[in-house]
């Protein structure tokens, strides 16, 4: 049983390491996902954020604009995750006779 556990561990680890080798080199400007425009000439989402973050929300920190405005839905989910963690701790750990 222990051998099987190690086999699964190394298999999954190997797949993850293989996945890392397939990532594009960091800072490679010619790679498709790092380009400002797609091959068809459309604007990539990150290019849109960089060009329009200040115009859309008058906020110099574009990370904040992406976090709370463009990707507000995602941040709402993150807040709910934190809240759920607190709720789970409350339900599991708090000792109270009902």
């Amino acid at each position: 049983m222990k051998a099987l556990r190690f086999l699964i561990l190394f298999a999954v680890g190997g797949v993850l390491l293989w996945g890392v080798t397939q990532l594009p080199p960091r800072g490679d400007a010619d790679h498709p996902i790092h380009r400002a425009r797609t091959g068809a000439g459309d604007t990539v989402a990150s290019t849109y954020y960089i060009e329009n973050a200040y115009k859309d929300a008058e906020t110099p920190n574009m990370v904040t604009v992406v976090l709370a405005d463009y990707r507000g839905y995602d941040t709402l989910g993150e807040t709910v995750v934190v809240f759920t963690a607190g709720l789970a701790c409350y339900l599991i750990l708090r000792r109270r006779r009902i």
Partner: protein
Amino acid sequence: MIVKSSSPIVSLGARTLSPVIQLYAFYVIAHGHYSPGGGFQGGALLAASIILVRLSSGQRIGDMQFNKALGTPLSSVGALIYAGTGIVALLLGGNFLQYAEIPLLGGDPVMRRNMGILLVELGVALAVTVTFVSIYDDLTEPDDD
């Protein structure tokens, strides 16, 4: 249950540091538009300042700073501020979380988005702060209830 430290240096030092950390936390929350920071980071700092007093001076004095009973209700208020902003925008004819559709936030749509981001960050900060403190309280609760 964490017992109160007997050393006056520890409790005095923690009580002196706590307001300074809180001030910096509010700076991080309010300055999220201009520098790295925002609700999550500022909330974590605020929670750290509250937990510091609880660790050094015990639960009784910690409760004077932030009462344990407020923990879980306030963290749902934080999450509700965020979701409520989205739902208000939805009710006023926009999309969910489309701050530009909320006239209460200011004049032109650009400024409304700016204020909407601030409102949402405040909700995040409240939820994160209170959740961290309430997890700490749950972990250290005495066995005899």
